[in-house]
């Protein structure tokens, strides 16, 4: 680590900015009274964000493709969750399928 002072400043910026993001959405929400339908849309927006997060973390690594093992594990987890398998089974299956595929040489 070349310049500790700069790194600390960078860390402080990231920490403070992240806290500001966490706070500002709530303050907006408290300031404005949303009709029930708008509140449902806000919740749906969070679900859409989370779905996009699932897609990008499952399928991409940096700017490229993550390889087949990870999305295959997540796909199996998705099917199990859709069929109402217990949470524990869903999450362990994702890791197990991915690990086994990698063991078999799948990237």
């Amino acid at each position, binding site marked *: *680590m070349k310049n500790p002072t*700069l*790194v600390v*400043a*960078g*860390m402080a*910026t*990231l*920490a403070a*900015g*992240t*806290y500001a*993001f*966490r*706070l*500002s*959405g*709530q303050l*907006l*929400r*408290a300031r404005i009274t949303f009709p029930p*339908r708008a509140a449902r*849309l*806000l919740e*749906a*927006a*969070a*679900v*859409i*964000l*989370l*779905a*996009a*997060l*699932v*897609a*990008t973390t*499952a*399928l*991409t690594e940096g*700017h490229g493709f993550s390889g087949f*093992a*990870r999305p295959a*594990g*997540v796909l199996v*987890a*998705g099917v199990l*969750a859709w069929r109402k398998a217990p*949470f*524990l089974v*869903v*999450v362990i299956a*994702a*890791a*197990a*399928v991915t*690990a*086994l595929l*990698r*063991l078999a040489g799948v990237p």
Partner: protein
Amino acid sequence: MRSIWRTLDRRVLADIGLTCLAVFFIGLSYGAIAVSSGFPLWVPAAQSVLVLAGASEFLFVGIVAAGGSPFAAALAGLLVNSRHLPYGLALPPGVTGRRWGRLLGTHVMNDESVVFALAQPDPARKRAAYWACGLGVLACWPGGAVIGGLIGSAVHDTGAFGLDAMFPAVILALIVKDLRDARTLRAALAGAAIALAAAPFLPAGLPVLLALPAVLLLVRESAVTPQADRQPVVAQAGSTP
């Protein structure tokens, strides 16, 4: 704290426990990667407590280790963390606590605590799930980072255990309930497609934000769906100038 145990049923608590365990393991790899790329242990330790948002910390450490400026790394991390703003909008008021409690309640907002809160049916249980998961992550993420930093390269390769598949699987398992609604599913798929199409070209964090306009699919469709329970909404929308 005691009210959390009474409000949530054991199944939800077990799910939260497993999620925190997964966070702990990812924390191990974070600490190990940070230390083995040349950072002293206090960097991942302090960051895991003060930032408390995994993806942005990995990115920060990666950029600085590659010779990038810490401010560029902080900006990249902030882009990744900007999704916490819409999270705050989505959470019903009171979930993150009141007065002084909200200082901490705001800090423990993350993907996991938000998704567990959204999955609960009523305000009391939303609040309890949010806090149980948020505090669990606050303990497990820094704990994992410190232990990972101490044992170093021994845990470097979490890929071999498929641990990288656990985070998307946790989130997916918790939003499946919402995705059973066909319109939400369509909007979510559209959003995911936008994010994936943008991922090769845009910096991390931005693709996920670009998925947000997919919510417009729900606005438009709910205005034209001729369902009985939507009638008042249509009337309201029509009367707005």
